[in-house]
């Protein structure tokens, strides 16, 4: 429980670190790694502008998204309430409402973002499920605590973890799927959906995004070298993961929407290979 609280509290730091690394790789100074905290406190204290064509759903959505994502994180310790598959469904609860909120203000941007987000999400889902299956089959359970406590590392879990990393890139809106830094009409996906949000609601949505990111990072880093899962090692592994994500973001360009299908098919093949390796008993 304390572990989860620390994770939740430190989650914005991950984004700060990634952005710092990105800036340093580009030989720029960049904002401090605590910038996400400053942003959040600014969002929370600022007033909020809501479009007059919005319904109650628009105001409620940030809380639903926040609650669903935080619950997903909490399931790590409340393992009697739900398992890893329930986590996938909780993320889809958050996404469902976010996509609806994108359609609510009656703008083209929001609809465009919702459509693209749901498109990518529906292709990510089978890949995520296959890699979750591969990991859970090695652990012989879908219970999160037991998956985290797994000690051995096998070929299937390595492949599935790699696929899960690609899934995480898509789910957290990173390059090459989406770009968190852009507000260019034609390319934005997640940002287009939340374009009408401001103030406190935007802050909640950002925070939920950090939670989701930390969940994936934590899952992936505890699956890599599972022998070393003491907090110190986990933090080191997560920092390495930050470096990898930053390097990927700096060195690649965002893909065209329909190239994402190829990217995700690659991830899908990777996770399918993981299952095949599992069957062959590697």
């Amino acid at each position, binding site marked *: 429980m304390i572990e989860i609280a620390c994770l939740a509290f430190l989650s914005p730091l991950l984004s700060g670190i990634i952005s710092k690394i990105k800036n340093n790789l580009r030989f720029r100074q960049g904002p401090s790694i605590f910038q996400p905290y400053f942003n959040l406190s600014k969002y929370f204290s600022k007033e909020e502008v809501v479009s007059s064509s919005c319904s109650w759903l628009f105001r409620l959505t940030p809380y639903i998204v926040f609650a669903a994502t935080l619950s997903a994180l909490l399931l790590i310790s409340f393992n009697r309430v739900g398992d890893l598959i329930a986590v996938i469904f909780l993320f889809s609860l958050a996404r469902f409402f976010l996509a609806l909120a994108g*359609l609510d203000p009656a703008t083209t941007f929001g609809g465009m973002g919702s459509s693209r987000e749901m498109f990518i999400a529906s292709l990510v889902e089978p890949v995520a499920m*296959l890699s979750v299956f591969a990991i859970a089959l090695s652990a012989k359970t879908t219970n999160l605590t037991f998956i985290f406590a797994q000690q051995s590392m096998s070929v299937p879990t390595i492949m599935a973890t790699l696929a899960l990393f690609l899934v995480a890139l898509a789910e957290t809106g990173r390059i090459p799927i989406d770009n968190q830094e852009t507000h260019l009409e034609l390319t934005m996906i997640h940002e287009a959906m939340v374009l009408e949000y401001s103030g406190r609601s935007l802050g909640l949505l950002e925070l939920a995004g950090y939670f989701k990111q930390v969940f994936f990072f934590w899952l992936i880093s505890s699956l890599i070298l599972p022998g070393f899962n003491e907090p110190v090692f986990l933090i080191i592994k997560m920092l390495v993961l930050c470096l990898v994500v930053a390097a990927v973001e700096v060195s690649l360009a965002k893909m065209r929407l329909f190239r994402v299908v190829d990217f995700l098919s690659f991830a899908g093949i990777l996770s399918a290979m993981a299952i095949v390796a599992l069957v062959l008993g590697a």
Partner: protein
Amino acid sequence: MLNTYFSLVFDPLAVFFVITILTISIPSFIYSLGYLKGHYSTRKIVLGQFLFGLFVLAMLAVVTAGNIFFFLIVWELMSLSSYFLVIFDTENKKSIEAGTIYMVMAQIGTAFLIAAFLLMYQQSGSFDFYVIKQALVSLPIQQKNILFLLLLVGFGAKAGIVPLHIWLPYAHPQAPSHVSALMSGVMIKTAIYGLIRFVILILGVNALWWGELVIVLACISCLVGILNALTEHDLKTLLAYSSVENIGIILLGVGAAMIFIKLGYPVLAVLAMGAGLYHLFNHAIFKGLLFLGAGSIYNATGSRNIEKLGGLINKIPWTSSYFLLGSMAISALPPLNGFVSEWLTLLVLFLGALTLGGGLKLFFCFSAAILALTGGLTAACFVKAFGITFLGQARSVKVEQAKECGLAMNMGMAILAFLVVILGLGVVFFIKIFGFVAGFVMGVDASLIRFSLNSFVISLPLANNIFLATPQLLLLLLLCAVFAFVLLNLFFGRAKVLLGKTWDCGYYKLTSRNEYTATGFSKPFRLAFSFFLLPYRKLNKVKESFYHVKNFYYETHTTKIFMDYIYRNLLGSTFRLAGSMRGIQTGSINIYLGYIFLTILLLLVFRGIF
């Protein structure tokens, strides 16, 4: 004599289906009291209610019939009464067309059933289920295979298994909404009942490939159904396609149960069948709810085309909340009932992959991946259906003036919406009931299987530490939301909200024409799945001069592969065959007498040989 022909059975399976039928029929009937009033004359209402009653009665008789003779009669009565309900709007040409397609498909299905039943009768010399069951044990495996395939096609045509699904998107939208709710929610499930009763209970699962075939068909139905639903803009047609998908999810559970029982894993078989039955019941409820919701939208706006709706959430708040609940349930969002049964189905596939080895492990994993893809596409489909219909701005004047429907209609929907929540939260209670029915079907004493850890947490049998507790999940969600709300108010004060206009890039004024459309929403899917949907588009620019475009026409639609490439060809060749047969009908009585003589001769020869 009468007794042997009209016996009834009331075993757990029959009772389960009776309860399912009644659970949907009663709210639908309450709804119809309000719905029919505005649309039809008094005489037609009386006729409609009579047919509705007959339809419900026929369905009840189908699931309680105790012998194949009676079963066939009420099965046809069910098809016939629903046919008349499909063509209820007789002045509408589309209704007649839909009715004809429905009737043809129903008859093709029945033809296969009759063939199967004749085989059964030939073997046993009796109509009774139990006598047949005993007689079929000694049947050679090849004949059992044939019997299975006949039953699969016969019931598949009614259930809407791809490629026999083509009548659903025609027939379901044309019937009045409360009948659509019943047809899509319950009637297609009577075919699932037939499959369970005749294949699993009477015939018994005799080969592994039976279950595998059912799962493959289920996966295809899932994907075909939901992809068609995604690109569909008529609300009721969309829902009909999504029924094809949900039949697929139900059959995933049933097929997995068939594999498990064949391989000798009774506990897993009960769990798989329980998941299938749970989803069957859930789908009946939320699909019923969504169809009633679509009826209320039609009642309020006079349109079912979601491209013409929009902004209804403020105009018809009750209907929109019910529809939102239904959409959430069908998209398997926690903690509602669709989530529970889809989670169970996934876990069944997981446990199957865990227990079995080799090819079957792969098979179950990929089925789960397809189920996940289907889940993602369903969520997208219902974001579109709810978002375009209820959110944003109204796209026509009629929608602008929409009024909430009356008390009876609201009541009908409220009951089903309540059940959507209850079946999600009361999973520990319901899993035992569904487990009991599944135990009866699979011939296992389900009371030996522990489904729940305590009164709130369900734990799956075979240990593995897999748990789910939907009430706690809801509590967790609520606590997190309240936690955020309270902390924010404590540290940052009350939220200050300004009302403004939607960001319009400095454009003059945003109208409903600037909104994203349903066609636009589904475009990425149309392009990515173009190998199946075969989208067709036509652009036409009317230019005033080289630089100035005066008018712009854009047309796009997808191709209905099964209808256009398979059924139209079949229909064409049937007509051609009939045309070529015309040559032997000369109209001369002498030649006809000759035909009769020849026929008798042939029959005598036939009898002599066999």
